[in-house]
């Protein structure tokens, strides 16, 4: 099993980098969407660890994404000019990792107090933290206040986005399938039974939260260097809900389904561009219709107990 996953990771990264090398032959519009897909896969898979595998309900994923994005963008903005061109990819890698790490620290700071709460209370508190993070960026002159950060260098390519998407999928899958990772699923299935088995639910929840926030930060860093502009409005709770919808659509705790959902939900709005004025109306109706007909997610067929 483990060997197969490693091969998957290597092949996926190689394919991503290979495609990236040849990216000049593709239409730039499609290329941009492909990068969006990669970023959204990272977001959805990392949120799936929290909302799906561990069974918590976080509505603040966009906040962690913002932390990672702003941190990374600030780093490349400050040091970008003084780093020689050959070292730029290294700087970008450092920015991505720093973005992820700072987001993880934020996840820890948010997770420790809030994960004592459950259900709706947890949802509202994570939503609250997400909004607080946004308000901080919105008022801080250092981060460009309401106008946001502009002039970010284009660094995210297809290779970066998809390679990190592959790493995210690999890491989350490895964690969940490990002996330690069974703890997340135990917490999801029954917290009380899990703690009777010697699993500390709070510890597992915080771990899931920190790992999820780390990858959300990475996605934010990639996003910043893809869109080249960061605005605090872009990270409000509608963005968090978008990610939650991907996870639900894919089926909570189903990595493959969530990846598929992330791909579809990124491409769908683009396909609806010809009917732009009805786009969001159709999107919202789709959510309702889906919940009414397939609440367990679009891509869940048999296997594994139904979602609680």
């Amino acid at each position, binding site marked *: 099993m483990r060997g197969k996953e490693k091969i998957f990771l290597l092949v996926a990264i190689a394919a991503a980098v290979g495609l990236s090398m040849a990216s000049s032959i593709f239409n730039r519009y499609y290329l941009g969407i492909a990068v969006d897909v990669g970023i959204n896969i990272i977001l959805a898979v990392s949120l799936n660890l929290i909302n799906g595998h561990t069974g918590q*309900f976080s509505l603040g994923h966009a906040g962690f994404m913002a932390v990672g994005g702003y941190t990374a963008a600030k780093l490349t903005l400050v040091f970008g000019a003084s780093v020689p061109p050959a070292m730029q990819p290294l700087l970008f890698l450092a920015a991505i990792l720093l973005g992820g790490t700072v987001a993880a620290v934020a996840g820890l700071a948010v997770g420790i*107090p*809030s994960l*004592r*709460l459950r*259900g*709706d*209370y947890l*949802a*509202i*508190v994570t*939503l*609250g*933290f997400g*909004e*607080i993070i946004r*308000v*901080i960026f*919105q*008022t801080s002159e250092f981060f460009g206040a309401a106008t946001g950060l502009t002039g970010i260098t284009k660094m995210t390519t297809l290779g970066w986005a998809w390679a990190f998407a592959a790493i995210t999928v690999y890491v989350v899958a490895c964690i969940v399938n490990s002996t330690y990772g069974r703890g997340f699923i135990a917490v999801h299935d029954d*917290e*009380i*039974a899990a703690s009777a088995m010697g699993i500390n639910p709070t510890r597992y929840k915080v771990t899931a939260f920190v790992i999820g926030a780390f990858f959300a930060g990475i996605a934010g860093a990639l996003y910043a260097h893809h869109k080249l502009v960061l605005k605090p409005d872009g990270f409000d709770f509608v963005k968090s*809900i978008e990610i*939650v*919808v991907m996870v*639900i659509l894919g089926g*909570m705790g189903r990595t493959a389904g969530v990846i598929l959902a992330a791909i579809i939900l990124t491409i769908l709005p683009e396909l609806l561009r010809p009917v732009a*004025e*009805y786009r*969001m*109306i159709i*999107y*919202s*109706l*789709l*959510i*309702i219709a889906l*919940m*009414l007909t397939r*609440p367990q997610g679009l891509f869940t067929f048999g296997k594994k107990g139904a*979602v*609680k």
Partner: protein
Amino acid sequence: MDWFLQQLINGLALGAIYALIALGYTMVYGVLRFINFAHSDVLMLGAFAAFYITPKITPVLGPQSVPTAMLVIVLSAVICAAIGMTIEFLAYRPLRSRPRLTVLITAIGVSLFIEFAGQHEKVFGAATKSFPTLLPKREIVVGALHISSNDLVVLVLTGVLLFAMWFIVQRTKIGMAMRAVSFNEGAAALMGVNVNRIISFTFGLGSALAAIAGIFYAMRAPGIEPLMGVQPGLRAFIAAVLGGIGNLPGAALGGIVLGLVETFFGGMPGLSNYRDGIAFAILILILLFRPAGLLGKLQTEKV
């Protein structure tokens, strides 16, 4: 001191509106155990209903008169009650036995649908519209205090409505049925309570309150637009959780607390930019020490 009293009155008026909206959240939570995200949009629909009704009624009952205002408020409330019940019937009832998360996402879907449909140019359009003046606005000056007559009307009417809610829930038969459904749906059904009707009624009541709150909010705001419900809705949601969700006096208390906090911090120089964040910060602080809200009871999970 004057500044303090002034902010106190402003905060109470704002808090009263939050309290009205929060009551809708908390009542629905009481019977269905889920957060009705579409509630904030019903509030917006209430304001828009009033916007379209007022010009129709003005020629009959005269502009800016008390009968006009009353009729507009009542009609908007009735329309929104019908809308709320329809939403419940179409979107939530088929999901009654499904996991709560499913219903929550559906509610988010309904909310997005109303918002985006409302923004479409053939519906309301995204532009801000100026809300008609329902009542003549007067400034009442007491010493250094400036009190808007609208604020007073809002405060008094909210007080009346809160009392009416308390009366309906605690002193009438249907209120008793609501409490029974909230306490134990299955047992209530066995006792002959028509659960579907009670849930429908609860939605209607909550939506009517939201419509009235929407009109009050529109009276204080510069204009109305399809996304106007989002911010007050979010605040009221916080207020409901703050007071202990599912708890009616808690929702009223939470609304008032939030309104006061927001007005006082908003009025302080240097802090006004953080106003949005502070409401959440207070919520988080309170939940850390009282995880079930101010008046909520913590439920221990039994195996």
